C-alpha cells in the first residue's frame, strides 16, 4: 500500500515532442506528489509538485496532471529538449510523526533525441 508504481521504465522522444510519464498509488493518506529530476552523477532535484486538491499544475514546459479518484498522476514535458534527458522519479509524501517520508517510484529514464 506504500508503493508508487511508475511507467514506463524508459522513454525515447524526439526533440520537440511530448514526454509523458505515469504514476499510480494506493495509499489515500499521501498528500503531496513531487517529481524529481536526476542527471547522471547528481542528486535528485525537485522539478514540480502537486497537492491532491488540484487537478493540474503547470510550470513552464512541465505539467502535472492529477486524478484523485483514479489515484494516478502524470508528468508531461512539452517541447522536449535534449537537455531534458535524465531520470525522472515520481514520489508521494506521507508524514508519519511529522517528518515527511518520500515514497519514490522506480524511475523513468528519458532520452530526447535531436
Amino acid at each position, binding site marked *: 500500500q506504500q508503493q508508487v508504481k511508475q511507467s514506463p521504465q524508459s522513454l525515447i522522444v524526439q526533440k520537440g515532442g511530448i514526454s509523458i510519464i505515469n504514476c499510480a498509488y494506493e495509499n489515500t493518506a499521501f498528500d*503531496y506528489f*513531487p517529481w*524529481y529530476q536526476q542527471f547522471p*552523477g*547528481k*542528486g*535528485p*532535484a*525537485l522539478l514540480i*509538485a502537486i497537492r491532491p486538491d488540484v487537478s493540474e499544475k503547470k510550470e513552464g514546459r512541465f505539467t502535472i496532471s492529477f486524478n484523485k479518484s483514479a489515484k494516478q498522476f502524470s508528468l508531461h514535458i512539452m517541447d522536449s529538449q535534449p537537455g531534458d534527458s535524465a531520470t525522472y*522519479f515520481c514520489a508521494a*509524501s506521507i508524514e508519519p*510523526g*511529522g*517528518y*515527511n*517520508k*518520500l515514497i*519514490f*517510484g*522506480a*524511475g523513468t*529514464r528519458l532520452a530526447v533525441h535531436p
Partner: protein
Amino acid sequence: DAMVIQNPRYQVTQFGKPVTLSCSQTLNHNVMYWYQQKSSQAPKLLFHYYDKDFNNEADTPDNFQSRRPNTSFCFLDIRSPGLGDAAMYLCATRGGGNIQYFGAGTRLSVL
C-alpha cells in the same frame, strides 16, 4: 551555491573496512535524511533525523549507523561494508515545507 554538500564525492573502501560519509547543509533545516541509491533504482530511505531525534527505517541493516553532532552536519557510518553496499549515498534536508533538498551524493565502491 550548493546548499547540501556531501563529501567525498567518491569513496573507495575495502570489504569490511569501516567508512564514514559526511553531509553538511547551509539551510538550517531541522530534518536530515540519508538515502541509498543503487544503479538504476530509486533512492531508498535509510534513516532520518528530526533535530536530534534519530529514526531508523525498519529494513535498514544494523551495519549502517548515523551521527548528527549539530544542525549543520550529519554522518553516515558503515561499520563493515560488504560488496552489496556499493551504491550512491544521498543526503537530503527538509525545512518547514515539503521540499527535500538533495546533495550530489557520494558514490561508494567496495573492493
